[in-house]
């Protein structure tokens, strides 16, 4: 990937893109044909309304979510970036990357013109739900003050998730954004969350919840409306788990539109040099500084092969380089540029 050698982003925040770049980027996104390695490019995501980002914990899915939002925004789209959180009182990982580590309240925060951020939390969803169910504000407050009800909503299994999905569907209905880009929980919990509507709808066919979750289900399983993006690292275990995750999400009717291999290192070695060095190290086992970093590099290169061999090319597959020595927000800026180029 060439982008690693690009000029670093200029000091000013690129929240407001310059007009020429915007036009160029958005036309690329609409007509982009993707990388030679298959799929329809990240473009496949950009004409979808709902983009769900997931992956194993620690692979950088939060940064990728933020970068996707930045890239879409830079292309002139109206974007809402969201994250799933159990508690709105804790700092926000995604919104920190946009300078809003502790957004007040539950409503969307304005980050820049056409760019907003919001947190999807069980309590927020429950409040919206009760507001719709009870219509009268006073009753909502009374109901939420009822210890029995709040206990039930926060403690009964699946109710927190129902709250999150309810808030999600409300956003999809009411918000005017072109894209809602959501940082989902890590792998296992993401699959649980995505598979929840199907079961719940069977048990709760009617009422506000039943209707809303039917709507979530219909939207999530419509590839014209929703795409999932899975993020992974060039390491053996994360890559093989990604292959399973793509299948598991597919089984729930959620189409994975893109797989992103994050933190791909570049190699200075020719293949012959690398194999000679490896053989020499294995034979002599010298106390060599750099041996561990070399091993990591070799594993990353191997895992990259596996990524292209095993992640189905029905998803567009792309890479993000390793950005060393930059802070989180700078990394997001660079990632956004690369993701813009890929399409």
């Amino acid at each position, binding site marked *: 990937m060439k982008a690693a050698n690009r000029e670093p982003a200029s000091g000013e925040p690129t929240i407001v893109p310059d007009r020429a770049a915007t036009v160029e980027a958005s036309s690329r996104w609409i007509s982009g044909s993707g990388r030679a390695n298959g799929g329809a490019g990240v473009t496949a995501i950009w004409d979808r309304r709902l983009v769900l980002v997931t992956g194993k914990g620690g692979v950088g899915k939060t940064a990728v979510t933020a970068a996707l939002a930045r890239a879409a925004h830079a292309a002139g789209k109206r974007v809402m970036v969201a994250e799933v959180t159990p508690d709105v009182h804790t700092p926000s990982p995604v919104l920190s990357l946009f300078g809003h580590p502790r957004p007040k309240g539950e409503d969307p925060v304005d980050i820049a013109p056409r760019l907003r951020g919001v947190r999807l939390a069980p309590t927020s969803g429950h409040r919206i739900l009760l507001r719709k169910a009870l219509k009268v504000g006073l009753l909502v407050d009374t109901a939420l003050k009822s210890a029995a009800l709040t206990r039930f909503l926060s403690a009964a299994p699946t109710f*927190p998730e129902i709250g999150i999905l309810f808030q999600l569907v409300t956003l999809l209905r009411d918000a005017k954004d072109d894209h809602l880009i959501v940082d989902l929980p890590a792998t296992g919990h993401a699959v649980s969350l995505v598979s929840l509507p199907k079961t719940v709808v069977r048990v709760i066919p009617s009422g506000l*919840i039943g209707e809303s979750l039917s709507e979530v289900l219909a939207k999530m399983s419509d590839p014209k409306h929703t795409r999932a993006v899975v993020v992974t690292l060039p390491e053996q275990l994360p890559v093989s788990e990604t292959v399973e995750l793509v299948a598991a999400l597919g089984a729930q009717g959620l189409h994975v539109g893109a797989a992103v291999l994050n933190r791909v290192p570049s190699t200075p070695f020719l293949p012959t040099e690398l194999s000679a060095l490896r053989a020499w190290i294995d034979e002599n086992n010298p106390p060599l500084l*750099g041996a561990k970093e070399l091993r990591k590099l070799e594993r990353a290169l191997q895992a990259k092969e596996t990524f292209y061999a095993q992640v189905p090319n029905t998803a567009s597959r792309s890479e993000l380089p390793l950005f060393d020595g930059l802070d989180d927000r700078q990394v997001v800026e660079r990632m956004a540029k690369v993701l813009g180029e890929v399409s």
Partner: protein
Amino acid sequence: MKLGGLVQSRQVIVTCGAGGVGKTTSSAAMALAAARCGRRALVLTIDPARRLAQALGIPPTGSTPVHIDASILGKVGITLPPGGELHAWMLDPRVVLESVVDRFAPNPEMATKIRKTKLYGALSEVMAGLQEYTAAEALYEFVETGRYDLIVLDTPPSRNALDFLDAPRRLTRFLDERTLSMFAPAEQQASAIVRAASKVVMGALSKAFGETFTHDLQEFLGAFGTLFGKMRIHAEGVRNLLRSDKSVFIVLASPELGAVEEAMFFQRRIAELGLVSRGFVLNRSYATDRDLAKPADLVAGAPSKDVARALAKLGPLATIEAARAEEHRLVLARLETASKSGGGDGAMALPYLDQAIDDLPALEALSTTILANV
């Protein structure tokens, strides 16, 4: 922090930390270390790590813990002393739920009745939220049987781990009789005030969920209600167990960017739950590296041009490695201070393992490091 001492003396070790810090492998290594001291150890993981399961020769899911065969450990040269056993289980929420119903129902007919309710069927299908409840219950059950000297509980990554820590408390709240009575069928409700309050709540729920569900919910809670008293005792039991000095919480961190903040976050959350985190483990660290040769110094002795050229190109990677080792030592020092100021015992480092491509040798090496830390 003396992890080697802890695996020999404690009954429960709960490991938590963000995703990708190597919790599952480290947890298994702690259990193995205990087994190597002659203890019967169980590693209970919530996040199924297929490769670890594969390396240990156990199925990724199953209804009971699997005793790791001596021949498997023998492959990496480990022989357990008399009494030492290593068991592993990838927690299956459905199995735990089934067993809860079987053990707590007053009679088999009631157990069948509960299983037949529509909501039970859905509950056992939906994984969301269930893992945390069942983990707490499974922990209690295994401690209760006395079958193991040490149980290492590997929590799910990141935010979900906190759900687990909170599960017994939330369960107790959920199982509070006053909460339940709101949902009990009307004829069972004693006072007029409770009936009136219940009417408001059920009215809201009916609108939200539709009449059928509200009816199903009442039916389910009516049948399940008989179990709640006992489940509540267990929930309290888990809380007390985790608070007692039989249990310790260990926070795992990796040396990457933000590791200290992440680890501190866990320490704080554990404190908020009225518990103490014993210390930090800095996993996959270079902190203990010393006296390594620079690649440039070895070029002269290279057997071929390819090796010489490769060694020359290794220079930048060596520089990165040296800088990281330095950084890891700083991180370790910060964790040490942070732990002690929070009432813990400090921090220790587990090394980055070159052979980690295969889990068994890694487990062996990690457990050796743990045992040396007494």
